[in-house]
């Protein structure tokens, strides 16, 4: 068994926090609230990490990488608006609890693989609720509010969807349902989900869901025709959407040439590109840029703000951190013997990786922009809590495997 040194990255995290918030404190006219936020965040990380290490809860790196990403996110949010940064810490606090709760539940329940119907139905119920109760934010009708609290059900649906897919692909669900084989059933549910997402105009989530589906088919499906049939149908649907859906035409048009209509349709992406271009390699320095010119800078466009003030190298660091997170998740998935856990692990890994690629690619104009949050970095309760929950599942999977395979090692030590 590997015995990596996880203390060094932990120190790096502490140094990064200390330096980052000290810098922000100096840039912010020495107002102490920045330091309180920084200390709070660091305390939170140390607490979460200590519990993790003391209780020997599997992989030691996942949380460290996520913490580093959250540090960058909170730093940027505090720089934009200290109140927002403080609120984000509250969400991280709640997220941390959700992390441990998810971990315990997932760790202790062994019949996840038999509940495919619940996941599929739960997803659809959430979708219907969104359509009935939802309100429209930035052109996407994907929010539900309860009084002052509001959340994005599509974030939660993604996890249901992954667990649903895993039931089939781990081979735990073999009986046909309404004469439909599980293979066809997964396809049907996927397309129903996508249909709901189209109604909500949540293009980013459609992309994530569909790509997870395609990668899962690639890995697990023996019949190659099913993979090709899905890719072909996606191509047809995409072409159809481009020809007949104004929303998609606008997005593609703006991607090809944002400068044609800078003051309207191209405004967002142009502001994002201005910010990235202003940053150069090393950035304009924390507090020296003007990221507030970008609309939605605290959620979808936070990467552009990081690029403006921390430079392309700062942006590259974020990309590399996400790659490390994905790599670590892949490693856990590969080491897992339990078929169901393996499929869930793969799904969550893909969710982290694809979501990152889609939003960072979008705000840099590498691919057409579809609004979606950057896990752990973007502001927002649902995003932070669901990212933590996904991490909790991943952590539980790693712990389950370590516990099983580690019995021998424990005796040796």
């Amino acid at each position, binding site marked *: 068994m590997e015995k990596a040194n996880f203390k060094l990255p932990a120190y790096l995290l502490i140094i990064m926090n200390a330096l980052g918030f000290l810098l922000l404190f100096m840039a912010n006219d020495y107002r102490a609230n920045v330091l309180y936020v920084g200390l709070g965040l660091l305390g939170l990380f140390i607490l979460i990490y200590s519990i993790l290490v003391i209780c020997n809860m599997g992989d030691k790196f996942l949380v460290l990488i996520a913490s580093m990403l959250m540090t960058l996110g909170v730093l940027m949010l505090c720089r934009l608006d200290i109140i927002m940064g403080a609120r984000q810490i509250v969400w991280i606090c709640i997220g941390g609890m959700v992390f441990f709760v998810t971990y315990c539940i997932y760790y202790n329940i062994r019949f996840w693989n038999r509940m495919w119907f619940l996941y599929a139905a739960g997803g659809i119920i959430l979708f219907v609720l969104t359509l009935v109760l939802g309100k429209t934010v930035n052109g996407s009708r994907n929010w539900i509010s309860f009084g002052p609290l509001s959340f994005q059900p599509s974030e939660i649906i993604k996890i249901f969807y992954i667990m649903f897919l895993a039931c089939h692909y781990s081979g735990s669900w073999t009986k046909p349902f309404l004469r439909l084989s599980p293979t066809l059933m997964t396809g049907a549910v996927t397309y129903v989900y996508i249909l709901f997402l189209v109604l909500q105009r949540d293009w980013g989530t459609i992309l994530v869901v569909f790509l997870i589906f395609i990668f899962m088919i690639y890995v697990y499906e023996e019949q190659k025709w099913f993979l090709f049939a899905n890719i072909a149908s996606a191509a047809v649907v995409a072409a159809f959407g481009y020809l007949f859906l104004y929303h998609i035409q606008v997005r593609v048009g703006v991607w090809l040439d944002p400068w044609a209509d800078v003051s309207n349709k191209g405004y967002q992406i142009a502001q994002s590109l201005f910010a990235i271009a202003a940053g150069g390699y090393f950035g304009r320095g924390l507090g020296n840029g003007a990221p507030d010119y970008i609309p939605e800078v605290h959620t979808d466009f936070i990467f552009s703000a990081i690029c403006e003030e921390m430079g392309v190298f700062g942006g590259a660091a974020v990309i590399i951190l996400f790659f490390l997170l*994905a790599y670590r998740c892949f490693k856990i998935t590969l080491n897992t013997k339990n078929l169901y856990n*393996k499929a869930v692990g793969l799904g969550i890994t893909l969710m982290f990786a694809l979501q990152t690629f889609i939003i960072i690619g979008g705000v840099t104009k590498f691919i057409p922009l579809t609004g979606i949050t950057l896990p752990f970095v973007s502001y927002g309760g649902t995003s932070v809590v669901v990212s933590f929950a996904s991490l909790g599942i991943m952590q539980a999977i790693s712990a389950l495997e370590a516990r099983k395979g580690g019995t021998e090692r424990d005796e040796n030590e």
Partner: protein
Amino acid sequence: MKTNRRIIRVLIVVSALFLALLSYLLYFNMFEAERVSTNPYNRRQWDDERYVTRGTIYDADGLVLAETVENESGGVMRKYPQGRIYSHVIGYCSQVYGKSLLEREYDSELLGKGDLDLFQGDKKKGFDLNLTIANSLQKYAYEQMRGKRGALVAMNPQTGKILAMISLPDFDPNAATLEKSWGDIVENENSPLIARAVQGLYPPGSTYKIVTAAAAYENGLAGTKFNDEGKFTVGDLTVENYNGKKYGEISIEKAFAVSSNQVFCSVGFELGSEIIKEISERFWIGKSIEFDLQTAASRIEYKKMSDSDSALVAIGQGQLLTTPMEMAVICSAIANGGEIIRPYLVDSITKNETVVKSSKEKVLGRAISEECAEYVKERMIETVNEGTGTKARISGVTVAGKTGTAENENEKDHAWFVGFAPAETPEIAVAVILENDGRSGGDSAAPIARNVMSRYLSSVK
């Protein structure tokens, strides 16, 4: 295990995606960021201006051409005391419509970027620019060109210093007037926003015979006699001499002075497309000239150039398009013994009268040999003394020049003149074009060039 093998392939795909993101981000920063950040819609460009007073632009004698002043409400405003005269040299600087020409190209210098002097009070001051242009000559040239449409470029053929540069029609660059009249300016069919001197592409007409004559000399055609019947015909191409004149038996030298199309078409045809294309490239056709402002690349636009095409190019017609700046550079090459010299407009960048950076003369390449340049210069002197360019004569000074009357589809001819003086030790080279003037270059453009050269020579004495 099969599943794991496939998962590893997925891992490879995901790694490729992340690598693509990283590479794109670097690519964007290396190749696109600069263009993106100077977009007029980028509000950041004006952020710096809150902390820095934009530098002043002076002429060669220290006269203010552009300065930033505070207005009544405490905001800042860019003022151009000379009005329209420099609208196509300095450009404009408007919070609404962005920046152009020098204001754009030298934006970071004017904002003092890279100035590490930290002890200078509350508001920093950007660097100042000192131009090579003296206002007296620029103003005189502007008056000569007044009411016309076209361009004038005057430069020192030995050093490349720009002495005057006019493009017309123009506009008032002062922000308040500019913003009020922007709609009219943009919709005006004469495009007053185009800096014709560096961005305008025209057929050079007979002024291009300078290049053809150089090619003829290099290929041993000097002294050859031709029989001029007033008309050049090959295949279905027919080119007549200006006003249908016939010169009979004529030497190539005389044909240059009287600007015979028949003779020069024959030369172009006989030398063939490869030779014409190659010498054009040596004279910087097909490349944009390195300059303080963005210049359009003069070019020969044929996909595949035939020998009858080269007959047309030899007299500056066909698919050949040049900028007035390019013609001034070609003319300077003849004047300075065959070298393509880099023109420049900003003489030095200073801060509180201390020089931060000063421009140096630079030879971009050699077009022709000194003997060849001398041969063409003789032809140009003859042109002014006894050929089509007699209206460019200055008493007591030898002038070398070439006229051009360029045909263009459906519209009246462009009148051209390029020349330099004094021919023995050239101090000024001028290119003048009058768009759709209708008259010949010798009649309309030559006098303007003469006046500008004469004025300059008398002022330096």
